[in-house]
């Protein structure tokens, strides 16, 4: 068993000043002092204790509100939906009603021998335009054209039985005008011309 020099103990304990330690012992004193410092330091790496990790978490500042909201949004949540059967029936009825209402906006159902007649006329100064002809007993006012975007172009789309019809436009309730866009015209035997529309069955 080797015996450590008493002067080394005294130097490590601070009882002997470093400059009075003999030169041959100074190296040993320095090595022992470094070893002592190494032992006194905390262990490095992941071996941090549970206590230290908890304390570190407590000391960390709280996340902002936006960060918490974001975290809530991206985190999966379990949702429990409890529905009464009666409410389910009501919900289904509402959906069915809305579906039927929407279907009603798709226009009238066309019969086997029915077709669509489109009437278009340009009357920039008109206040009202109607189409009158053999399809409505020449009764003014029954089928109005519309100018929804106020560009002077008046339109109406009418369901009629397939066939051939004569017609004219009545502008502002008093002015009778043939459809200048019509491809077919025929004398009306009253000194003017009627337009002709041929309605073909839509279901061909």
């Amino acid at each position, binding site marked *: 068993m080797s015996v450590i020099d008493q002067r080394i103990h005294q130097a490590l304990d601070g009882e002997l000043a470093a400059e009075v330690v003999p030169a041959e012992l100074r190296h040993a004193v320095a090595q022992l002092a470094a070893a002592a410092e190494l032992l006194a330091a905390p262990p490095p790496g992941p071996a941090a204790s549970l206590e230290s990790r908890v304390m570190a978490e407590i000391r960390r500042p709280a996340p902002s509100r936006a960060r918490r909201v974001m975290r809530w949004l991206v985190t999966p949540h379990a949702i429990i939906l409890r529905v009464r059967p009666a409410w389910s029936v009501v919900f289904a009825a509402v959906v069915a009603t809305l579906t039927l209402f929407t279907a009603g906006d798709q226009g009238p159902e066309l019969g086997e021998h029915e077709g*669509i007649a489109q009437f278009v006329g340009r009357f920039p100064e008109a206040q009202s335009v109607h189409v009158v002809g053999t399809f409505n*007993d*020449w009764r003014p006012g029954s089928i109005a054209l519309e100018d929804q975007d106020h560009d002077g172009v008046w339109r109406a789309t*009418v369901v009629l039985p397939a*066939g051939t019809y*004569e017609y004219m436009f009545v502008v502002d309730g008093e002015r009778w005008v043939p459809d200048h866009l019509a491809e077919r015209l025929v004398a009306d035997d009253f000194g003017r011309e009627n337009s002709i529309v041929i309605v073909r069955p839509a279901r061909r």
Partner: protein
Amino acid sequence: MKRWVGLALSACVALPLPAQSVRGRLEGRIPSTAIPAVDSLIQFAAQEGLPTEPLIQKALEGGAKHVAGPRIVAAVQLSLGQLRDARDLLVRAGDQPPVLPAEMTTVAWALRRGLPAPLVERVVAALARPPRAAAMHAVADLVAHGFDPDSAADLIIDAVHDGVPRERLLDVSTAALQQVQRGRTRAEALAIVRRQLPNLPAPARPTRGNVAGARRPAAPVPP
């Protein structure tokens, strides 16, 4: 009181029902002074087996256009003459009496649209089986756009013989008109369409949007 009610009912029964309904449609729509004459013309038409609806429509048209009574009567009389001519033409072309009212109306339309009577007669004879409305309108459309009447009639008759359905004959005339719009002469257009028969481009169908916005008139009258 009972006696007056009985007399009134007897008078109603004595009048033919169509006459009552015709007068009902005319009253308030044409000058009252014109109603007896128009009514009698319509009764003549009914007795002769001619269609009466075109005559009623002509009278209603005159009333709506605020035409004087005598002119309405004259126009109805003219329409009656056109229907008689149409019936005679159909019989000459081979239709067996009683001629169908719809065919008389069709031929009257064709004559009013300016087709020569011999041409109409030729089309009727070539297309023995009614209905001929689409064929007549197809020929009239072509003639109205400057096509040779005989060549136009030949094309439509050929189309029927090649198996084009009657309801698609207007597509034949439309195809010829489209060829002219593309710069062909009328003779070239007829030749091109004839070569394509019985194949025709698909007709335009009403779009979903058009159907969605469509409405029915209060009481459409069948033509």
